């Protein structure tokens, strides 16, 4: 009797999760499994398709173009992510401080760029960056020298970082701001009674409350950096020689499959990048949560 009812309830549970499971298998598991499968083969224009084992992986490990792109996004991540998160943090603290006039306006204004589609945002910045007819040209004219060259080799990562920061500061600010909103008011009261100043409150209460949100935002940002694609890919038409086809790992994967029909190599890049990203995100999460336990 008991076994019967248990199995019946199990079937019921399955029925409830089935819609999710089907979609999950179809759109998540199947493509990943298929990519792994693809990465074990090599399809040639002449000679057809053949199983090559781990050869694609062995080649990727010594592929200078892949590692150049990888190191570039790593450099980008190490500089751009802290800058963006600090800006977002300052904005969230300022809006939460209750000392800012029209904080609702600032909240919406800082968040607004996130609502602009990435493609539109990059095109817009592309016009601004134009060093012959764009805003940058006017700036250079005004300064009387070619101070800014957003599409030059030395500046291009800064130019892209600026766009990405502009796009996502508001999004991260909102994550931080919502974490601050749930801090109970009596904590602040207690701090005030103890004679804590504004900065002491930030250090002792707000930053503690934000720890989880900061870990989450950092993981999101790391994943986003490794996935960098839209911004450089669109700017490429304006700086074709500076932004190469392997500028970021994602661009490399894209161009391998869509310009070179090297679907197998492309799948290999996708899997390797996926594993690297997952490992780094996991390490960040582990470190973040360990601190929280302490």
């Amino acid at each position: 009797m008991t076994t019967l009812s248990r199995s019946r309830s199990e079937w019921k549970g399955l029925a409830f999760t089935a819609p999710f499971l089907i979609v999950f298998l179809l759109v998540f598991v199947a493509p990943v499994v298929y990519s792994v499968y693809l990465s074990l083969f090599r399809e040639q224009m002449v000679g057809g398709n053949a199983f090559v084992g781990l050869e694609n992986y062995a080649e990727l490990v010594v592929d200078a173009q892949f590692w150049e792109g990888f190191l570039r996004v790593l450099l980008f991540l190490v500089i751009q992510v802290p800058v963006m998160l600090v800006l977002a943090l300052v904005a969230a603290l300022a809006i939460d401080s209750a000392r800012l006039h029209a904080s609702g306006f600032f909240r919406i204004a800082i968040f607004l760029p996130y609502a602009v589609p990435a493609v539109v945002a990059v095109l817009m910045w592309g016009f601004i960056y134009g060093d012959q007819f764009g805003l940058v040209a006017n700036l250079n004219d005004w300064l009387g020298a070619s101070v800014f060259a957003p599409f030059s080799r030395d500046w291009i990562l800064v130019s892209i970082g600026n766009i990405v920061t502009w796009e996502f500061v508001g999004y991260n600010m909102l994550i931080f701001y919502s974490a601050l909103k749930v801090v109970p008011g009596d904590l602040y009261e207690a701090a005030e009674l103890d004679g804590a100043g504004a900065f002491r409150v930030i250090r002792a209460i707000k930053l503690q409350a934000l720890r989880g949100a900061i870990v989450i935002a950092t993981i999101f940002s790391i994943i986003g950096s490794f996935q960098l694609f839209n911004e450089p890919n669109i700017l490429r038409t304006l700086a074709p020689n500076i932004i190469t086809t392997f500028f970021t790992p994602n661009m490399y994967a894209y161009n391998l499959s869509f310009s070179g029909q090297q679907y197998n190599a492309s799948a290999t890049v996708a899997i390797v990048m996926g594993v690297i990203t997952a490992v780094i995100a996991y390490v960040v999460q582990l470190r973040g949560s360990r601190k929280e336990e302490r």
Partner: protein
Amino acid sequence: MSSSRSALRRTLTIAATAALAIGGLAACSPSAAGGGGAAGDPADLDAALEKGGELTYWSWTPSAEAQVAAFEEAYPNVDVELVNAGTNTEEYTKLQNAIKAGSGAPDVVQIEYYALPQFAMSDSLVDLSQYGLDELEDDYSASTWGAVNVDGKLVGLPQDSGPMALFYNQTVFDQFGIAVPETWDQYVEAARQLQAADPTKFITADTGDAGFTTSMIWQAGGRPFSIDGTDVAIDLADEGVQKWTGVWDQLISEGLLSDTPGWSDEWYQGLGDGSIATLVIGAWMPGVLESSVPDGAGHWRVAPMPTYDGTPVAAENGGGGQSVTSQSKNPALAAAFLRWLNNDPASIDVFLESGGFPATTAELDDPEFVGAESEYFGGQKINEVLTQASKDVSTGWSYLPYQVYANSIFGDTVGQAYANRTPLADGLADWQAQLVEYGDEQGFTVSE
């Protein structure tokens, strides 16, 4: 940074698209093999038009819509669905994916000359000589006919051509007392003169363009690519290549070229305000200038392409035609439509009206076409220059069977010579090395 959700979505999109592209391959590749489709003969074409049916036609040409309308009026039994599947590489990607998938390709498709060998190679296109279309040879200029014959098969019919000429801004030349250059040495001299007189003005804009470079090498007598079946030879340092780099290296190292990327908004503005003073480009350019550079009206003129030793010689730049795919369920009807599209005077009239430059000898020799005065070009009879250029195109050129890919990595290699102002030979050597590696990976036998 993006949220993990959109980051995830991006990974999935890439993975899924690649998956979809490959998915049909294993199941369906046998049907793509064999190439020629059903065997047929010339009588089939008229019968097919009589019988009628449905066709899909991919094209991004501005004249396609009017041509399809005119065709459907002449042959009411045939229903042609016109699809703009994107411009050049965008369309080729879709076509390549449809070929891999074994279904989804149109019956008739627009393909530029440089991309033809790639699609012909994989037996994706019908050999049109089985319908007797090889007898149309005399109707087309020699260079365009050469371009649609790949490895002994007629894989398309030419629609337009792009014999190269020198387009120059007469007003700018007059202002600084510069004579129209007839040789490349004079061209370099004019570039120096112009920069010295006004640093905001450049002889031309070139940030490295594969189509331009290959055409310049073609004119200089270089033949860096040759194909024989699956044997490919690449030599991007032959005598012709060196002749071209000898000239162009001077322009690059002295900073005489504007670094405005071609086809960008700034490029069009530069063509309109005189800061880009010349263009060495295909004969289809007048239509582009008229529609996209209204400020240049009255200022631009056309002259023959400069040469190395005074002997007139030109090359093709761009241009293309249409082909019938092996996936077509009605290849006879598709071939009949193609014959009308690129050979019937009614269709070619529509094409010329849209500003295209023809590949057909009847038009290239037509006194009315040749003698037409162009208002945009200050009343110059530009077609006199352009049709002569068409006759001066040197023969024997071929593109790689993976030229679309080759062009996509041009910026990574030769483009670096432009960006760093280093010798082109280094960039070309780099390009060659990557092309050899790719060819080997794809199963070709590549020799250098």
